[in-house]
């Protein structure tokens, strides 16, 4: 039975790269502490493959034909995509892909009643994958990457309940379909509160963010479902905050486990609340 050896969730706002030097000390500290811990614990966990649930920001599919979960099955994943380079200001990278696991995931989820889509080309990555990869230097490790780009922004997108069902199917897939000795890492990339391109572009809902981080770190899924509804997400920022749904398949796959958070910052110019969780497995 393959084993889940690492699980974490963190936001990927491009400004934590582009505006890092301009941020106040306490905000820089949250970014650094969060991603330093993720980077260190990821290496210590030695996964063979890291499956990243990240949000697609309308970068890979027409809005008229939009997949809910898009798996990248390419042998390598390079980014950031050309148009996003100027926006994010991060270095280029090429992470090792894992076509075998990616294709097995596609088949395994299909068998379990979860419609996913797959493409074998290099997907167009913006901050969704570029921030976690460059902040952890994933491309400089032997850990392979399977990106799953999730629709959290084109309505109707998969609900919190559906994301949990996806996570349960994911756990079953990892336990039954992957090679017995394989070590698997899971990462949810997205959130926290923000409203990209919206009238509340500069509004951050600190109360929502702190509650969300607290419930995630407690591993209290019942209260999470009750309090962190999609309606509450939209209230905390339309079209952006629901990106936290990418943490849900990860949480569902590992079950109700406690985790650790590394501080929180709601600096307005990041245009996104920042804080992450690493779960204890």
């Amino acid at each position, binding site marked *: 039975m393959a084993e889940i050896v690492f699980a974490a969730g963190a936001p990927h706002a*491009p*400004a934590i*790269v*582009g*505006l890092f030097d*301009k941020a106040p000390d306490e905000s820089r500290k949250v970014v650094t502490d969060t991603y330093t811990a993720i980077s260190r614990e990821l290496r210590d966990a030695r996964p063979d493959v890291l499956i990243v649930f990240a949000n697609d*920001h*309308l*970068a890979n599919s*027409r*809005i*008229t034909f939009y997949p809910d979960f898009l798996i990248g099955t390419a042998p390598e994943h390079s980014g950031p*995509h*050309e*148009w996003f380079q*100027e*926006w*994010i*200001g991060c270095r280029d990278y090429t992470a090792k892909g894992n076509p075998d696991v990616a294709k097995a995931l596609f088949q395994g989820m299909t068998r379990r009643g979860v419609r996913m889509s797959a493409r074998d080309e290099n997907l*167009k990555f913006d901050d969704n994958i570029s921030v976690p990869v460059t902040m952890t230097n994933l491309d400089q490790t032997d850990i392979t990457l399977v990106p799953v780009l999730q629709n959290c*922004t*084109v*309505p109707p997108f998969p609900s919190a309940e559906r994301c949990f069902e996806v996570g349960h199917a994911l756990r079953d897939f990892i336990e039954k379909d992957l090679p017995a000795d394989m070590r698997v890492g899971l990462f949810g990339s997205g959130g926290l509160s923000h*409203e*990209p*391109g*919206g*009238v509340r*572009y*500069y*509004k951050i809902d600190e109360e929502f963010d702190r509650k969300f981080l607290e419930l995630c770190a407690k591993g209290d899924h019942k209260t999470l479902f009750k309090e962190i509804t999609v309606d509450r997400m*939209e209230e905390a920022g*339309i*079209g*952006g905050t629901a990106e936290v749904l990418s943490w849900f398949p990860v949480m569902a796959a590992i079950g109700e486990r406690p985790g650790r958070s590394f501080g929180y910052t709601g600096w*307005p*110019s990041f*245009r996104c609340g920042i804080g992450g969780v690493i779960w204890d497995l």
Partner: protein
Amino acid sequence: MAWEKFNPNLAAHDLVQDMKWNPEIRKEFKTNEAAVLDRYKMSPEERKAIKERDFRKLYDLGMHPYLGGQLSRFIWGNDAGKGAVEASNKLVASLQGHSRDIPEN
């Protein structure tokens, strides 16, 4: 805005995605915007809203705000070190009709 106004049929979505995927169209949009817009099946209202940089109107017509934000970057700039501040500020000012909530840094 809330999702009740969202209309996935808007041609402006295709325009923004095409600019993301093709630097030539991006360049042409800067030098000859009308020629680019001519290639999309936009309603007169939609086209007028883009021409007048009226994001409030575009969102009322149903534009997805994520792509609206990206359109503002194609118009006003996308520089990471400046956080695309000019684009974000002008977008928010257009949506609100004022610029009172915009932070200084």
